[in-house]
């Protein structure tokens, strides 16, 4: 019984802090399960994917209700993300766990550096969480859509006045990419976005993360999608991306229901709480604390990759 409650608490902590810091739950959950609870890495990735689907699906619902996400663009890109996820889910069973640990160490280091860069900004947008319950709360409070950044990178690439700088009216669409644009913005480099989505799917399936660390910067910086639309669209896509690979893990018997159940419930509760209090907390100290924790976790993962852990 104690172990079950500890898993719920661990999931809640990952969901809460992930939400407060604008990280997806997977980045924190997989190291927690492997390094603290001794769960095999591949099993932890499978459990994390389930938790990621839970939080991103709830979030996608709220984003869609607020009409922030670009549904058409998301549906095009998620096709490629799903292809990458299916490939990643298959490759994950071929790769040695040490290689996966090494990849995770690289991603964690990247996340830590992005968080550190974000923390050095003098003014920064409020970071809300993976559960877009958050967004709903904010939308009510501010009477306009919130800007929930789902990962550290999203915040790191935020451009001041992103939306406002764009023209309100655009010429009539002439290409397929033009038909995917939204109010005041047009889609650029669609082919690059498709390729990057395959990469996001691969990363998601191999490491049990949402893949927003790839999708949001690509959509925002490379494709010209406003940050809040990119974040919402990425969150919506994560459901399909993670489901594609989770199905492979499920059919291969890698999802342990006794670990996935308490963890998913914990992450959902934690992310919901975090999203409600995110706007009221000064997360600067928390962010720096987590830069240290994430770097230490990356170090431990690297040790494991080298067979030293």
């Amino acid at each position: 019984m104690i172990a079950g409650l500890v898993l719920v608490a661990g999931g809640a902590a990952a969901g809460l802090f992930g939400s407060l810091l604008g990280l997806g739950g997977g980045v924190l959950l997989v190291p927690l399960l492997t390094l603290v609870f001794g769960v095999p890495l591949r099993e932890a990735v499978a459990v994390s994917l389930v938790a990621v689907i839970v939080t991103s699906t709830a979030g996608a619902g709220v984003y869609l209700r607020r009409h922030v996400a670009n549904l058409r663009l998301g549906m095009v890109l998620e096709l490629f993300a799903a292809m990458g996820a299916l490939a990643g889910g298959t490759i994950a069973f071929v790769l040695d766990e040490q290689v996966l640990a090494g990849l995770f160490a690289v991603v964690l280091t990247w996340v830590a550096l992005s968080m550190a860069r974000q923390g050095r900004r003098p003014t920064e947008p409020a970071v809300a969480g993976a559960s877009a319950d958050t967004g709903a709360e904010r939308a009510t409070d501010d009477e306009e859509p919130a800007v929930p950044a789902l990962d550290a990178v999203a915040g790191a690439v935020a451009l001041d006045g992103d939306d406002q700088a764009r023209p309100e009216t655009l010429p009539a669409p002439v290409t397929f990419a033009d038909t995917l644009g939204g109010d005041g913005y047009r889609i650029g480099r669609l082919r690059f976005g498709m390729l990057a989505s395959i990469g996001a799917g691969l990363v998601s399936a191999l490491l049990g993360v949402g893949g927003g660390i790839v999708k949001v910067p690509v959509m925002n910086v490379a494709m010209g999608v406003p940050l809040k639309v990119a974040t919402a669209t990425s969150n919506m896509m994560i459901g399909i991306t993670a489901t594609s690979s989770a199905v492979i893990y499920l059919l291969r018997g890698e999802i342990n229901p006794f670990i996935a159940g308490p963890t998913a419930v914990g992450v959902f509760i934690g992310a919901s709480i975090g999203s409600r209090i995110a706007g009221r907390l000064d997360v600067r100290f928390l962010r720096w604390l987590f830069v240290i924790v994430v770097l230490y976790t990356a170090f431990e993962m690297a040790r494991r990759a080298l067979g030293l852990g």
Partner: protein
Amino acid sequence: MTQPAGQQATATRQAATAIESLVAQILVVGTYVAVGLILVGVVLMLAAGTDPLSPGAYPPFDLASIPAQIRSGDPTGFIWAGIVLVMALPIGRVVVASQVSV
């Protein structure tokens, strides 16, 4: 009589908005139901004294046996049902949205 382009665009936009609202409702309600199912399974699992971290085999996934597991109050059935539902939601979202928006 053909509609002016402006009216047509407005109608299309309204239809898209309606679909987004419908999909949003399905996702939010579905997630709560899925998490509720998983929660029931977790509570039953805790009540049964199952140690989730104990090494060894865990119940395999078998879609066909989930209804019977739920009827018999087996925590595994509730957890699997919640997991399957939450995995079905994004797929359902694509199916519903693709009927209209693409």
